[in-house]
């Protein structure tokens, strides 16, 4: 078991290195002079050149890349913001809780909506309890996140006045953003749960359970659900990543001070270290979540568990 956990955990190291390399390379292509960006257009050329030299911006690509990785790994030093001249990691730590709260709440809400409805719709296939959720999920799959958010603001904040439309002061501020993020994910989970559930209830072992005289509820919850949910659990990890990405849009709509708005601002300001760090940070979180889901999967599914016990 320990071997499985350790082995699986070690596997994310090359992925994270790869992610860092790719993002670093992409942002390396940014035109412009880092020293100039830090010092501003009025600064003298000589000062700019000196700064570039001092900060290592003139070094060859691989020297810079390895220096970056070593700094990140040894000191959590993701570089210094061009704009504030503060370590970007400090800013990320301030911003991240908002994004994490949003994405976590959204994934929980989406699971609690999407999975039960998916099960219901599979069990009651072709009934209204199947058709209506399917139509709604079809619609939600086509709705842009930000448009959904704006419509919710229009309805619940501006017209009805029930909920605040922006900010993060109280838990009530989170209701609309979480709903916005959660609904499309819930729709995806519902579709996925429905199809795995439909596949599962056609299996022979479900018939075996019925042949034992098990009542329908027991057949669904004890025999079918666990098998049907295994693939859904793996998707949950991916959904979390999708939600972290989607947070960029949701935060913009609801003016939340999370990583997403920070990134958008950083891009506008051409604050490359900030963009780089935020992207790598979010990608790392995604990898960790997927890792945790994989490990959890290993514990739930006896077939995988057994493979690593030997």
């Amino acid at each position, binding site marked *: 078991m320990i071997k499985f956990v350790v082995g699986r955990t070690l596997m994310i190291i*090359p*992925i994270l290195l*790869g*992610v860092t390399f*790719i*993002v670093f390379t*992409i*942002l*390396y*292509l*940014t*035109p412009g002079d880092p020293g100039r960006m830090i010092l501003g257009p009025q600064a003298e050329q000589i000062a700019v050149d000196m700064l570039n030299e001092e900060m290592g911006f003139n070094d060859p690509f691989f020297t810079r890349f390895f220096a970056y990785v070593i700094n990140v790994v040894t000191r959590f030093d993701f570089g210094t913001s061009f704009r504030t001249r503060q370590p970007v990691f400090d800013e990320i730590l301030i911003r991240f809780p908002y994004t994490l709260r949003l994405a976590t709440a959204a994934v929980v809400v989406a699971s609690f909506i999407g999975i039960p409805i998916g099960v219901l719709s599979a069990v009651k*296939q072709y009934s209204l309890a199947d058709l209506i959720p399917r139509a709604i999920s*079809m*619609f939600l*799959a*086509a*709705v*842009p*996140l*930000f*448009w959904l958010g*704006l*419509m919710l*603001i*229009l309805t619940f904040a*501006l017209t009805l006045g029930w909920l605040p439309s922006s900010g993060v002061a109280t838990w009530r501020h989170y209701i609309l953003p979480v709903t916005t993020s959660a609904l499309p994910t819930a729709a995806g989970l519902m579709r996925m749960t429905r*199809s795995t559930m*439909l596949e599962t209830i056609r299996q022979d072992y479900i018939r075996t359970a019925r042949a034992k005289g098990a009542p329908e509820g027991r057949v669904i919850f004890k025999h079918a659900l666990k098998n049907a949910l295994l693939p859904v659990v793996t998707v949950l990890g991916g959904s979390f*990543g*999708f939600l*972290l*990405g*989607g947070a*960029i*849009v949701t935060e*913009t*709509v609801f003016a939340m001070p999370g990583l997403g708005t920070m*990134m*958008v601002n*950083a*891009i*506008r300001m051409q604050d*490359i270290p900030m*963009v*780089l760090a935020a*992207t790598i940070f*979010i*990608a790392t979180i*995604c*990898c960790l979540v*997927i890792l945790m889901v994989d490990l959890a999967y290993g514990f739930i599914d006896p077939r995988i568990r057994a493979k690593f016990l030997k």
Partner: protein
Amino acid sequence: MESKRKKQSQLREVWRRLKKDKTAMVGLFIIIVFALAVIFAEQISPFHNAIRQSGEHRLQPPSADFIFGTDAFGRDIFTRVLHGGRISLSIGFVTASASLLIGGLLGAMAGFYGGWGDEVIMRIMDTLMSIPSILLSLAIVAALGANMTNLLIAITVASIPAFTRLVRASVLTVVEQDFIEAARACGTSDFRIICKHILPNAIGPIIVQTTASVSGMILAAAALSFIGMGVQPPQPEWGAMLSEAREFIRTAPHMLVFPGFAIILSALSFNLIGDGLRDALDPRLKD
């Protein structure tokens, strides 16, 4: 000749099944209407209406003169949605085709030849996939600058891995079948095997994925433009229009409605056609 005729009758069979699928037909109908509207946009309402500003007609709700109303600069929203469609739908098509082409080529090579090339390609794709796609697109736009071309590049790059994986998987299932072995044994060239045997047999899921992905691309482009990282004003792109509309959400909600519906309807239609095609190509999958 024989195989060509067989291919045609197969296509006819798929079309016959697809025609029975009412929702897919609704999707197809909407897409055709949108495509015609976009192609003849200039004839329906010339582009200069989309950018002509008018102080006296600011923020007007829908009326006989402006059936979708006007925006904050007094521009006709109907014309803007129409010409925005040119941009949004083109982005969808171009990025889907480009990702299919690049991803498909990489995936086919990885699947057909295997070995270390496969290993390298797939590891790169795994890595790309572990970055949330909107984040990857955003990083690319951040590096290259926000404009239409870079938006296309950003969305394409972010969608390539999914296509590579799909095509590789499809090719692998075909490659392992006996008739490929037989073709190899007859000394058929690799190129011929890929074109004549593998592609026709792997094409089903690829068509489905491409169709469905167009809607994802339209949504991604709209999202990036919405946060100001895509098509720039005064270009009338649907996401960018919604970004402008946001400031007038209280006074002129009609500005939100029409571009929003345009996005939803086009994305929905592609999803419906994708689902319909999936069922029509493989009736066994239908539940």
